[in-house]
């Protein structure tokens, strides 16, 4: 029942380097390199602003990820509540000082970067709940006292993000949070109640949706409803992916993206672009890399001794998987267009920063797997 490894409190630098998960590191690096090619192609084969800033961001954040890997897990544990609260404050600040773009307020101007706190909250919620469930004894999880806080911790950011409005990110934060709550031991019946409540209040919630959000849901249900309007993105994305065929049209040869038929090709639809140019085989490579990363994170969760580490890794793996699945489901026409970036591949600094911090903490779990946490 115990791992054969002994409990350690102090780890040397060499031990740290030795215990890094190199499969994970190289998977991330490989995906990062793919993302650079995709971004180059999305800029119609030029080193333009998007390509350059994506490459520099990936390089900087990849180094950040490696540095964070070596940070003591106990430090993460101790600062997790503060981390969450800081991001929550940033989210509130967005409400008042945020930058507006195409009808929604999502960004904070921090002079050196336009930060999207909702992306960071994806990690913040995981790290908060991981610490929360770390301490609670299994038999007390389902008591009212311990049920109340997670609800508020989840609801706060979700409501803030939803009113930005950013339905996609709000849903991703909510779903990944709910998953950890469930992993934490909360009984299924509470989720059933919650679902029933959700269904009951859905008509009211729908009345709060913006017209374009309603249109997106209706369009998802029937993309041909309005082929030149809301359904256009789904149809064009399916055409691009489908026309890629088994081997793809070739690097820089994707006519759908080159001729601007593809919307948002460097952000949400970057996978479509890649899939059009590299076909089924290329897509499978990307999919397997994502699966590999998810699998390694779960593996690390199994290896790490602390509940904090386990909760964090399992939570992160699930959330990461959901980000990928939601984005792919979206571009493949399986889910409505909600605006969810693909981790690492999509253009976007905050999303990349959040994912790299998240992966850094995962790696820290691996390095400090045998370190006990109070």
């Amino acid at each position, binding site marked *: *029942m*115990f791992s054969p490894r002994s409990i350690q409190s102090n780890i040397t630098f060499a031990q740290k380097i030795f215990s890094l998960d190199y499969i994970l590191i190289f998977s991330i690096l490989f995906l990062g390199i793919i993302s650079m090619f995709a971004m180059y192609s999305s800029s119609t084969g030029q080193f333009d602003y998007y390509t350059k800033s994506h490459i520099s961001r990936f390089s900087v954040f990849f180094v950040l990820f490696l540095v964070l890997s070596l940070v003591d897990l106990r430090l993460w544990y101790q600062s997790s509540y503060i981390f969450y609260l800081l991001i929550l404050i940033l989210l509130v600040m967005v409400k008042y000082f945020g930058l507006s773009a195409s009808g929604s307020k999502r960004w904070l101007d921090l002079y050196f970067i336009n930060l999207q706190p909702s992306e960071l909250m994806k990690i913040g919620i995981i790290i908060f709940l991981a610490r929360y469930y770390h301490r609670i*004894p*299994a*038999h007390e999880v389902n008591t009212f006292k311990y049920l109340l806080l997670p609800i508020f911790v989840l609801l706060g950011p979700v409501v803030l993000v939803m009113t930005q409005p950013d339905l996609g990110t709000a849903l991703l934060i909510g779903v990944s949070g709910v*998953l950890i709550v*469930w*992993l934490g*031991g909360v009984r299924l019946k509470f989720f059933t109640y919650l679902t029933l409540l959700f269904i009951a209040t859905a008509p009211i919630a729908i009345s709060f949706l913006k017209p374009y959000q309603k249109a997106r849901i209706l369009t998802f249900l029937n993309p041909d409803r309005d082929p030149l309007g809301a359904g256009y993105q789904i149809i*064009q994305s*399916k*055409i*691009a*992916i*489908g*026309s*890629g*065929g*088994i081997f793809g049209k070739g690097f820089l040869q994707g*006519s*759908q993206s*080159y*001729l*601007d*038929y593809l919307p948002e090709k460097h952000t949400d639809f970057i996978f479509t672009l890649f*899939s059009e140019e590299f*076909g*089924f085989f290329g*897509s*499978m490579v990307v*999919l397997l890399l994502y*699966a590999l990363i*998810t699998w390694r994170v*779960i593996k690390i*969760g*199994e290896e790490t001794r*602390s*509940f904090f580490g*386990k*909760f964090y890794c*399992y939570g992160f793996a*699930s959330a990461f*998987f959901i980000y990928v*699945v939601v984005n*792919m*489901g979206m571009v*493949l026409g*399986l889910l409505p267009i909600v605006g969810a970036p693909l981790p690492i591949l999509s253009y976007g600094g905050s999303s990349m920063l959040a994912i790299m911090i998240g992966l850094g903490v995962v790696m820290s779990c691996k390095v400090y797997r045998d370190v*006990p*946490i*109070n």
Partner: protein
Amino acid sequence: MISFNSNESFNKTRMISRRMFVLGIGKAIVFFGIIGRLASLQITESTKYKTLSDKNRFREWKVAPERGLIRDFFDNIIASNEKVYQLHITPENSKDVDILLNRIKNILYLTDSRINFLKRRIAKQKPWEPLIVSDNLSWTEFARINLFLHELEGAEPIVSVARVYPHQSVAHVVGYVSEVGPKDLAAKEYLRDMAVTGIAVGKTGMEQKFDQQIIGQVGYQRYEVNAFGKRIKQIAVNKGIQGQNYLTTLDFEVQKYAAELMQDKSGAVCVMDIFDGDIIALVSAPTFDPNKFVHGIDNKTWKELTSHRDKPLINKAISGLYPPGSTIKTIVALCALENDIASTKMSVDCQTSIELYGEKFHCWKKEGHRFTNMRKAIKESCDIYFYEIARKLGVDRIAATAKSFGLGAYHLEGFKEEKKGVVPNTTWKKRFIGKNWYLGETLHSGIGQGYFQTSPMQLCVMTAQLANGGYEVKPRLTLDENVNTGIKLTTDFETFYDPIYEEHPLLGKRLFRNQENIKFVKEAMFASTNEPGGTSYSSRFNEKDYQYAGKTGTSQTKRITQAQREADLEQTSLPYLDRDHALFVAFAPYENPRYAISVLVEHGGSGSSAAAPVAKKVIGKLIERHNLRMAKKNSLGLNTNV
């Protein structure tokens, strides 16, 4: 420190692992779902999406095809195509369209209104759509544009193809093309199907008649376009198929010669082959420059043409309607003979006028023709004789014969501008005027005045059908038309005159009862031209090969008042528009006839002085070129042995 040995901790670990396992299974299912979807899009349905992707990518722009050429019988091109130099601009490619337009304005000397028009057009269309600044630049203008091209970013000199008409003499019969209007689109399905902007459509004449065949098949330029419809690069070009070429029956030399003779006159000349119906010349004067219409006619020229006294745009040979005058006397005489109401020997004493119910009817000859038989009546065109015959015949019988010889009917199928005219009879008057017929009107009809309205084309057909012995002949302008084409005339002249045929095996329907009557009329026409006292005696040929038989006619534009008649007014002293129209019909040569001709000179005075001299010269030209024409017919495999 966490108590590692507690049951609590053990249970918690197990619970987490169990729940993670469930989640893991969920993830695997979803993962394979994604792969399945990817496979279905990229492997199973790939072909469908590839097609859709190409449908996105490629867009075709139609290219107007070249029209077919029109040639005369001797391969002279009478409607051709030429390279035209155009200047297009693409506003998007220019840094500042206003500066560009200003520069072009200075180079091409364009007017301010033209520039303003172009600016309005630019405002209306997408910036990447090319705009035609000028569709027909002269070579010097084009050269100047090319010289300054480095300063004209966004301008594009283009070489295209447009219709050109080298000769104005054939303007009416060939017709002209112009920009497609809403009416053309409404009337012509093939134009709607082609849907090419900038294509020209035939508006009149053969251009209009053969438009569907001559217009050609649309080509296309295939471009790769982006999501906004902007052309990215050209993928393929198909120039289309040039329209059908036409070899016409016209003899350009005769046409040009007749047009020159008519140069300062207003009128028409119509020449045809009396056996196969070949139209050799179809002249209307004055003429106009059809090239003006090709690139859109300007307002000033249009107004000049439409308000001109002599109506140059009207093809007078088929659309001009005139009373046939004395030329109808051939038909009236034939009608009388065929109906046995008079013999050729019947004699009338012409004392310059007769009276009927208090109304006086005059002969054109003031001193009267005295005793006149039918031959003399035709030869000298005695009105009194024909009043008498007409009175005996009644208008309905005259009308029947006139109609059977081609008056009051269309002859050029497909020519929208052709007019039918009027062959009056009692029922016609009742129907269209609503009054009963008066006997006096029968007398007027007997000399081709009154309600009669005929075109020079009809008079030509009438003469041809008399000349060929009384068989129906259908005029044609091209050899492709399936009219009287089977002229495999292996029989000799004698067989041709055999009156037993109801329908001549080599020609059309028989129009006579007794062919002797037709022979008589032809002989009288010969006398009219070749015997002293004949109305066209002064326009005769002495050489036997050139001798022809004709009949003059004068169609009144106004009733002559008694005062005018007593004053013995010369036509030349009348105001131009009050002068009579001069008419002349003839066939040539008299022995072995082959050609029929009709000449009309508007306000020319009398047929003998104004129309017959023109006809004589044209007949001279025809006979000079006869052997050439027959040789060409032989070379085309058409039998000429009549």
